[in-house]
């Protein structure tokens, strides 16, 4: 029974005769027969979703609890009162607005610089077909896979030498290059298929390479660039290792580093920990909700390329 299917994996759509009406019938039959089974499947899928979401739910529940309430009634009770002291104490202790500004500033700058750098390099590799481009692209791709540990100590030293230690610019420069290595890889394959007719038309109109880039190529690939922009922003926002090493004082740290370095602080009772985690994830969640579509498109675009 499986034999005929084994030969099917390649799309055969073109040559297939029109589907016989019987298919519809079996489909409805099946739906009737599986009337209860599908509810079990739904229940299982929902159960997995609940397991995934439980940590978030108990975090929110406990972020608004007084420490005494927590130790008395446990993690699953409804807060006895709407307690915001934990939230407030986390907010002031880590100077959250400052960390938020740091994170936005670093991630935003990296995203813009990274996309610009990717576009320039990918223009040369994809449109310009620079010789040896395969090597360059492979090199960039491998660089993106390097563990950051292999770069961190020399970069740490270099930052100190040029006066950028504990300076956000060190982190910005490093991530601009790391993200652009991936961006170049992705964009150059997109630009490799850029319609030649458009380029030739531009050159007949007397546009040089610079004007062609900004007047013809840029507008066409703008959707891809905005996906990259969002990705670079989020990746940089979530980065932990290099910011941890490079940003040594409170005033320069990003949200994840500030949150992690508060850990082990004995003043952090359970509700404050939860308030901290809650406040720290809010920007990520908001960003996710705004850009959910772009994100899903981006993840999958990255996968197929």
């Amino acid at each position, binding site marked *: 029974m499986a034999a005929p299917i084994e030969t099917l*994996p390649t799309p055969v759509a073109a040559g297939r005769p029109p589907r016989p009406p019987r298919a519809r019938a079996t489909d409805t039959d099946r739906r009737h027969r599986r009337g209860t089974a599908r509810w079990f499947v739904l229940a299982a899928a929902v159960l997995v979703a609940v397991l995934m979401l439980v940590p978030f739910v108990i975090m929110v529940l406990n972020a608004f609890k007084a420490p005494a309430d927590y130790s008395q009634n446990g993690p699953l009770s409804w807060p006895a009162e709407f307690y915001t002291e934990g939230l407030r104490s986390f907010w002031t202790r880590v100077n959250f607005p400052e960390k938020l500004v740091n994170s936005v500033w670093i991630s935003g700058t990296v995203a813009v610089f990274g996309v610009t750098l990717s576009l320039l390099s990918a223009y*040369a590799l994809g449109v310009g077909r620079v010789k040896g481009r395969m090597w360059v692209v492979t090199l960039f791709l491998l660089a993106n896979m390097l563990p950051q540990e292999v770069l961190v100590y020399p970069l740490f030293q270099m930052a100190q030498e040029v006066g950028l230690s504990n300076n956000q610019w060190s982190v910005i420069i490093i991530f601009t290059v790391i993200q652009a290595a991936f961006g170049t890889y992705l964009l150059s394959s997109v630009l490799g298929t850029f319609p030649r007719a458009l380029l030739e038309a531009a050159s007949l109109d007397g546009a040089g390479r610079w004007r062609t880039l900004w007047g013809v190529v840029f507008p066409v690939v703008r959707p891809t660039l905005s996906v990259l922009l969002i990705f670079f922003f989020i990746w940089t926002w979530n980065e932990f290792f290099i910011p941890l090493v490079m940003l040594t004082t409170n005033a320069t740290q990003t949200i994840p580093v500030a949150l992690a370095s508060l850990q082990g602080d004995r003043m952090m009772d359970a509700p404050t920990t939860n308030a901290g985690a809650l406040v720290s994830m809010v920007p*990520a969640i908001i960003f996710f909700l705004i850009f959910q579509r772009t994100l899903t498109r981006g993840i999958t675009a990255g*996968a197929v390329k």
Partner: protein
Amino acid sequence: MTTVDRPRVRNRRSRDWLGYLPYLVPGLVAFTVVILIPFGMNIYYSLHKWKGGNAPLRWYGLGNYTDLLADEQFWTSFRNSVAMIVAMVLVPTVIGLLLATTLFDVLGKRFGPRVASVLRASYYLPQILPVAVAGVLWNWILNSQTGALNVLLREVGVTDPPNWLGSTSTALPTVMLVLIWIQIGYPVVIFMSALQRVDPELYEAAELDGAGWWHRFRAITIPQIKPETFVITLTCTVAALKVFGPIYVLTRGGPESSTLVPSYYSYLNFFDKSKVGYGAAIANVLTVLIIVVAVVIMVLQSRSARREEEGR
């Protein structure tokens, strides 16, 4: 106009690329300064004994590397990398594939796309959190005294609940569970979009031939989504070998290096033990391993793609 332009256009064809070189310069310069030179320096450091900073560099040749061979912790860290691959590649990919096909085949079709996309979003949620935030959250949940899990266990009558992250026997499996929780959403999202790409006529034809769900899954789904499976395997394996954040936040490699991983071990040597050369050597070994694994996966991928094309 056009007659004047034509020879120039033709001439451009051959050595046209030279004119594009300036656009590659910023990228290459930045790449050299931030990646190539530091990488070279790291190799140089790994050949020395060095406490870092202004301390003198002492030539040690391959000594750091041979020391690694006799270092029990080093081997432990790489053994734990295997556990990380299980937790970040193997289990999430299998579960992710099951969830994605369930969402796509059953729930999306019988309960509507909205149900499927809400479920998908809840699987994906942990992926968008900064890993440090996820780590802090789990660190509290799993705390032996004040953590939600053990408080709950005590309430239901378990008198002596395990010290999840604090005992050598449970720490590694517990970290693995947290990593699975973080990772699952990624394959789900990618596999779901892969399934959308598959021609539904294939399934219909198979169904007409009387193939059951399992047959269709094996003979159509798995081969059709092979490209995405390779991408997931590649990116997640590299991520698993590099994993640092969750370990730093959850256990710092402990207790007694039961959750030590190479990247954390190298960090420890750099910034804690002041053994910069040794840390550099660990990072270099890790790099070689990652590149070998990545190249092997890429070769397998292109070979499988080629075979598919020839089969056609």
